[in-house]
């Protein structure tokens, strides 16, 4: 007879209680740590976000000295958000000069770039019927090429006076007379054209598309309801 096979030794069952104790204990500790840090950092983070938005609004409306956020309501008018900052909905930021006169409206817009969604904020000045500033809030464009939509001074200067004046359409509604358009670098001839960037054609085109789409939505609306933004007693 051949040698008997070695008896199979059953592995001792895993220690349930110590495992449970370790996982729950460590989990509890981690939960407390996260909750504490969240509560401790939240005010600072919210302040940072509000400040960043405020800075961006003043950047795109150079004349603004104070600003206020307005919601666009379903029934077709703007209403100040006021203290209740948590209200959801499409919104714009009105900028006022030192005397409290409306000098511009900052609008957020987004669209697909070369790599990922680009978010921008641009300022519209009703007096000039023009875009007076644009800032990229978020983008993942290629460093050194596509990110020149943020860093190239000549490109950014396109948005200091970009014509978006309105004209009545056939049906009586107002629409943008000349939609914003990107042209080849150096060939800008009209005030509604954006001089592109050599080497960042798609990113520059993306910005033009984002602005064209957003401006044709928002600018007729804002122009029609300018009174909603007036400050003061009247």
């Amino acid at each position: 007879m051949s040698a008997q096979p070695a008896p199979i030794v059953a592995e001792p069952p895993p220690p349930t209680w110590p495992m449970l104790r370790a996982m729950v204990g460590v989990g509890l500790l981690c939960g407390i740590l996260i909750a504490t840090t969240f509560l401790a950092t939240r005010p600072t983070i919210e302040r940072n976000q509000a400040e960043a938005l405020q800075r961006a609004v003043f950047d795109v409306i150079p004349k603004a000295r104070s600003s206020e956020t307005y919601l666009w309501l379903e029934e077709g008018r703007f209403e100040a958000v006021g203290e209740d900052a948590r209200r959801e909905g499409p919104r714009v930021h009105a900028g006022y000069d030192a005397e409290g006169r409306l000098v511009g409206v900052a609008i957020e817009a987004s669209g697909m770039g070369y790599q990922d969604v680009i978010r921008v904020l641009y300022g519209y000045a009703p007096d000039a019927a023009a875009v007076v500033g644009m800032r990229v809030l978020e983008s993942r464009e290629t460093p050194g090429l596509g990110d020149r939509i943020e860093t190239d001074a000549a490109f950014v200067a396109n948005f200091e006076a970009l014509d978006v004046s309105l004209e009545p359409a056939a049906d009586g509604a107002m629409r943008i007379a000349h939609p914003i358009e990107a042209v080849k670098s150096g060939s800008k001839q009209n005030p509604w054209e954006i001089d592109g960037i050599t080497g960042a054609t798609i990113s520059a085109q993306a910005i033009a598309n984002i602005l064209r789409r957003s401006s044709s939505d928002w600018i007729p609306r804002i122009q029609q309801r300018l009174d909603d933004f007036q400050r003061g007693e009247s």
Partner: protein
Amino acid sequence: MEAPDTTAMGAEEFWKGLWKENPVFVQVLGMCPALAVSNTARNALAMGLATLFVLTASNAVISLVRHVVPKQVRIATYILVIATFVTLVDMGIQAISLDLHKALGAFISLIVANCLILGRAEAFASRHGLGASLLDALGMGAGFTVALLSLGAVREILGAGTLFGLPVLPAAFEPWVVMLLPSGGFLTLAGWLLVFNAFEQRRARASAPEAREVPG
């Protein structure tokens, strides 16, 4: 820069991470953040410090709980601890600077998956006391930071002509944009590995003269 032999054991735990077992240049660990976030010196430094913090804090906790965690659930526990500290760093960076948080993007959360951290937890902190684990983590974290900074500095100088955002090369210099792109990360890493290995080889040859006869 090598710790002399007479130094206490503790110093050795620290220095090995910086040089002899440098996580990036010798162990070649944590390549994803090392390549992705080293396009500027500032991003590289921030990523290095964030990793240093997570590594040190999680090593400390793991070393403290090493006797109460059964081996069947140890990896799950380590990941839990590491993920917690990564979340803390993420909130901390948002509180310090939104711009920095924007630049580092998804890579902060990916520190969880940095094999350097889990590697040190499993290989070192779970087997050593608090003091040694802290020194090991500080050394490895510092080594990682220095390595990222060496990558980031080279890439930023060549790719943008600046260092920490300040111009360092004459305006006539045409930036090599490729250095900021992913391929530039690989090129720079290869360059540094070359330098590191050449240095190590020369040192090994100097300390073992009989090895000179080896052909090649």
